[in-house]
């Protein structure tokens, strides 16, 4: 690990100056160019300069050449807990769940995110170069997510977007967290009511802030945060597993005209026509998620394929793990989705361009296209196969991980 950190330091020093060519037997661009056999990518100044077949452009002599079998864009995990929920799972490194109030809309992931947690490095080694991380599953209104690159020392260095969305949680977790202590919510009804009430107040707050002199109206951090949601400045990310919870999310989204993203969506396949009708994108719980709760009993490996099949935009995420293992790896999850009817191309889209689009960062990331940031992963076999290794990871055009054999 020290090696990688020192590599990082050196590379940061030479940032943006490095010129690289990657030559791949097969390149998954995730752009309109599709998959290119015998491809070459030119990288300069941290950006992708040119993508095409080998010899389509002369490689200038000062470009360092990397040859590989397969290459993809850096993987994008659109809902991770890494960095807020540390590897050791002890109080000292757990900053995901503020279980003191069902509405914690004013919490910001950036204020708890530890870019130095070992799991961030673990994700990077597995090809994950960008993650959206948000407060955890315990509160009906959990707080503000942010998008980070996975390599860098400080939040300021790695931040792409904050806030990137507001996390809402339906279903079992809020009930367990509060209900068992005799507090609200004890029921799904209360969870929905808490959310509706807060959104309604945020709406009124927005109007009052507009119509009244701001000196006469005190600033409320929670209402201000939720105002961004009701004003569609940031998306509302609703975590919901059971099909009735999914319908509740859609109902609240309609009522307040939210920019809605569904999250988890374990039973999505049971209401896929309803989700499709509202054209809502979906951040899926890990394909291999454990059946450790009632709301995940009907989890199906085929859920990603069944949603894709009707044209729903899907991203596969690592979600939240409370115990062992502390996180999932989205490429592993995408592999199982592929083994269960999702075409390989779509499985890769679900961890690259789709999450980039859903989070609105596809102008910078998610595919290998001229002008985009050079976040690229190299493999010695098919990217989603069990026996394949990630051999190299580039972030912003710099080699940040190289596998030792």
């Amino acid at each position, binding site marked *: 690990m020290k090696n990688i950190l020192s590599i990082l330091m050196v590379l940061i020093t030479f940032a943006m100056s490095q010129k690289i060519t990657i030559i791949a037997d097969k390149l998954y661009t995730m752009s309109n160019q599709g998959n290119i056999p015998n491809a070459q990518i030119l990288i300069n100044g941290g950006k992708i300069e040119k993508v095409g077949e080998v010899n389509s452009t002369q490689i200038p002599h000062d470009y360092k050449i990397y040859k590989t079998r397969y290459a993809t864009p850096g993987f994008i995990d659109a809902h991770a807990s890494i960095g807020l929920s*540390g*590897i*050791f*799972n*002890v109080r000292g490194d757990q900053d995901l769940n503020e279980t003191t109030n069902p509405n914690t809309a004013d919490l910001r992931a950036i204020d708890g995110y530890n870019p130095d947690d*070992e*799991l961030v490095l*673990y994700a990077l080694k597995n090809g994950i170069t960008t993650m959206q991380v948000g407060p955890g599953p315990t509160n009906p209104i959990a707080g503000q997510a942010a998008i980070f690159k996975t390599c860098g020392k400080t939040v300021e260095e790695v931040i792409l977007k904050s806030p990137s969305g507001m996390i809402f949680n339906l279903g079992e977790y809020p009930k367990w967290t509060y209900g068992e202590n005799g507090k609200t919510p004890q029921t799904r009804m209360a969870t929905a009511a808490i959310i509706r009430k807060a959104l309604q107040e945020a709406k009124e707050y927005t109007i009052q802030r507009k119509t009244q002199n701001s000196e006469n109206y005190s600033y409320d951090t929670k209402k201000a945060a939720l105002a961004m949601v009701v004003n569609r400045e940031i998306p509302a990310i609703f975590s919901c597993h059971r099909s009735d919870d999914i319908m509740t999310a859609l109902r609240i989204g309609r009522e307040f005209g939210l920019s809605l993203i569904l999250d988890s969506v374990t*039973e999505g*396949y*049971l209401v*896929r026509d309803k989700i499709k009708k509202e054209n809502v994108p979906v951040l899926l719980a890990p394909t*291999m998620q*454990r*059946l*450790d*709760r*009632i709301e995940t*009993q*009907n*989890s*199906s*490996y*085929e*859920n990603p*394929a*069944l949603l894709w*099949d009707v044209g729903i935009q899907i991203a596969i995420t690592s979600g939240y*793990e*409370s*115990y*062992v*293992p*502390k*996180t*999932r*790896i989205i490429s*592993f999850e995408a*592999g*199982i989705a*592929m*083994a*269960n*009817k999702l*075409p390989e191309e779509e499985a890769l889209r679900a961890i690259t361009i789709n999450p980039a689009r859903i989070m609105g960062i596809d102008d910078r990331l998610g595919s290998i296209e001229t002008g985009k940031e050079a976040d690229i992963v190299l493999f010695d076999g098919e990217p*989603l*196969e*069990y*026996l*394949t*290794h990630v051999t190299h990871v580039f972030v912003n055009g710099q080699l940040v991980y190289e596998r030792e054999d």
Partner: protein
Amino acid sequence: MKIFYLLYLLILMLGLMSIPAGAQDQPVAFKGVKIYPITSDVIENGTLVIHNGKISAIGDSNEVQIPDMAVIIDVSGKIIMPGLVDSHSHLGIYPLPPVEANSDGNEMTGPVQSHLRALDAINPADPGIRSALTGGITTANIMPGSGNVVGGQTAYVKLKGKSIEEMLIHKQGIQGGMKMANGENPKRVYGPKGQSPSTRMAIAALQRILFIQAREYKAKWDQYNNTSREEKTGIPPPAYNLELEPIVEVLERKRTIHFHTHRADDIMTILRLKKEFGFDLVLHHVTEGYKVAEEIAKAGASASIITIDSPGGKHEAARFDLRNGGILEKAGVLVAIHTDYPIWDSRLFLRSAALMVREGMSEKGALEALTINPAKMMQLENRIGSLEIGKDADFIVLSGHPFSVKTHVLQTYIEGEPVFDRNLTQDERYATGGYEVSEDYPIMEANP
């Protein structure tokens, strides 16, 4: 009735490989298949003949004599290997759905529970068992949890039957091993209650006390048993002790200890106790085994290891490394890979081994770690774990290479009976998930 008729049609149309019901007394030959017998070389074009629940012939298709009466099933292009053996599972003892009412793995009312038997809590109707069959698991060591220093007696079972009596491999006598644990888990259960153990020292102490008590108890009985009948007259036999009896079996090496342990120093602690008291020891999880692989090999312990997708989740699992399997293998340790279901998904058992292969374990070693090696850890290697004449006809049919993500288990057989067939919709739901919603499960149009 209609459903049965449809099922029958389905079997006729799709399930040509299925054995017709009632054909059990007839030999069945699986022909033209690549076979991994495990204890001998891979057979490229093989035939496997089963009869009365046992393997009656196996070998190259050109050499195996198929009996005249045999039903012949063409399995060209497929792979057959032994049914998988999961040396560490909580199937049936934590049945689905996971509600308090179903939670029977950890009796956390006292740290020493040697008299508990997993078999008294295993629910054969657990849907998890049916799911495990879709992952190719045919035999499991079902264990109490690791919340206690001594968790209780484990059960060696086949995943077949409506009652635990049918499932148990040994119908009488010693029916499993003894679950024990050290490290964080027992500390976490008792420490916060102000009870012992709250330190690793106390965990080891409780275990030593138990072994010493068992040794003394055994000495009393030995003395009584060795006394002549005349001298015994009027002397009552020592009181029968339910807690110590199974520990005596451990000391007599009739019952194996299955020991949950993660950190290298915790591994060394139980090896120390093994040296002091002498018993057959299988280490379980063994997260930091790679740090003390030589010591494990030298102590003659074997290692049943876990695969997880990322390190951490608890302190003692933070140094998890997928290279563990390869390093232990190279050190000469007998290695099995386990699911620790529900920690890991039984349906993805082959995947657990594949990830170890990715990080340096040999393919041969990994296949053995799913079959013959765990069988050895349960002293069942004469019945299961490889495809050999006379062994139980427990085997699986795979669609492709065992360690490819694209491979599915197509069928699972236990003692010659088909217990899973992916061609049957209802069975397939257990493989993919969503078995409870079968009526509402959408059908996906075929891909272009």
